[in-house]
Structure formats: structure tokens, C-alpha cells
């Protein structure tokens, strides 16, 4: 339940930065931000900053390097929220 909600929140964030030729429906758990969703590195930073604000967490450079796919992002969010507890 919480997972679905997080995925929906993440999709909302990502959709703002999608290029015009990529539809929101294209966002799946295994989608690669750069290779499949065609998000450039500058907008990937915007996504990370929005994720931080939305979930009240802070990502480090290593997290950014690991964040290739939507699933990676969800795992990082999950882990950061666990660490906060």
C-alpha cells in the first residue's frame, strides 16, 4: 500500500520533467531515467531535489550514482525513510 503510494508520488514528480515525446504511461518500475525516459542530467537533479522535499529526506552523491531506474529511486527513498525512524 505504502509502496504504491510512493510510486504514485514519484511518478507525479518525474512527469514534470518528462520530454514532450515521452508519456506518463511510460514510467514503469524498471524504467531507466536517462536511457528510457530521456531525462537529462540537469532534470535528474531537479527530480532528486523534489524527492527530497516530498519525502523529507536527503540524498548524497552515492545515492545519485545508484539511482538509475524508478525502482532504484524507490529503494533509496525506502532506505532513507527507514534510517530516519
Amino acid at each position, binding site marked *: 500500500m505504502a509502496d504504491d503510494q510512493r510510486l504514485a508520488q514519484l511518478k507525479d514528480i518525474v512527469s514534470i520533467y518528462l520530454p514532450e515525446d515521452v508519456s506518463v504511461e511510460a514510467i514503469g518500475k524498471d524504467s531507466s531515467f536517462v536511457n528510457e525516459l530521456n531525462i*537529462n*542530467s*540537469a*532534470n*535528474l*537533479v*531537479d527530480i*532528486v*531535489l523534489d524527492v527530497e522535499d516530498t519525502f523529507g529526506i536527503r540524498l548524497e*552523491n552515492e545515492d*545519485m550514482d545508484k539511482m538509475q531506474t524508478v525502482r532504484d529511486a524507490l529503494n533509496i527513498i525506502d532506505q532513507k525513510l527507514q534510517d530516519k525512524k
Partner: protein
Amino acid sequence: MLIINDIIKKLPYTNPFLFVDKLIMVNKKAVEGSYTFKKDEFFYKGHFKEQAVTPGVILTECCAQIGLVCLGIHLLDLEEGNSKDFQVAMSSSEMQFLLPVFPPETVTVKSKKVFFRFNKLQCDVKMYNQQGQLVCKGVLSGMMKIKVI
């Protein structure tokens, strides 16, 4: 620590596309610099046919060279210990142009860092003319990073 003149030397631009004459101050949050638009700059031949007016894209470029790139060089130097080989790319610009700039004119650019994270630098920039009037303002972003060999 870089001194101010070293920052200008590190800029990857040259004539006729270098739009920084001097830096007045730089710290980890802000930068201030100036440039004099001379009557014989290459773009005045065509902009416009009848009268020389500095194009908005050139004002934006001047704001970016001082406000983003000079500040970025300083921040890379502070954070990474050097800024020897860096790559730079403008990623977005949202500018408003309030007054025309006719040559010759010396403009001052004042830039404040919004954030510098994951190699992306975003700044609030403002450009003033010699009378101290606001010429243009906006938000510029760019990617700045050390080249990985």
C-alpha cells in the same frame, strides 16, 4: 584558494565571446563582476540594421559567464580542491529584460546561488547599467563538473 584573476583565466571563452572583464567579489554564496560592451562587438553589425542594441541572448550569456561559470569555478575549487579541467553546460534560463543596453556601456552582474548540488548550479542573476538601473534579471542553471579522465 583561487584568487579572483585566476577565475577569469580559467574561463573557457575567448574573444569575441568572452563577456567578463573583472570580478569585483566572489564567495561561496554570490559573485559580482562587470563587462564593458564596446561599440565594435561583432553582433552590433546585425542587431539591429539601423541601431546597435545588445541582444538579449548576449546579456543572458554575460549573466551566465559571470553569475554561473565564475561562481561555479569558485565552488568547484572550494568543494573539490581544484577546478582544473571542468565541463560546463547551461541547462536552463528564464530571463526578463527591462532596459535596452546601448554600446558603449559597462554592466555589473550580481548573482546569488540558489543551490549547487549534484553538479547543478542554479543562480538568481541581476544585471545593472552604469546608472545602477536594473537591466535584466532571471534564474539561470547549468551543470558544472570536473572532467573524469
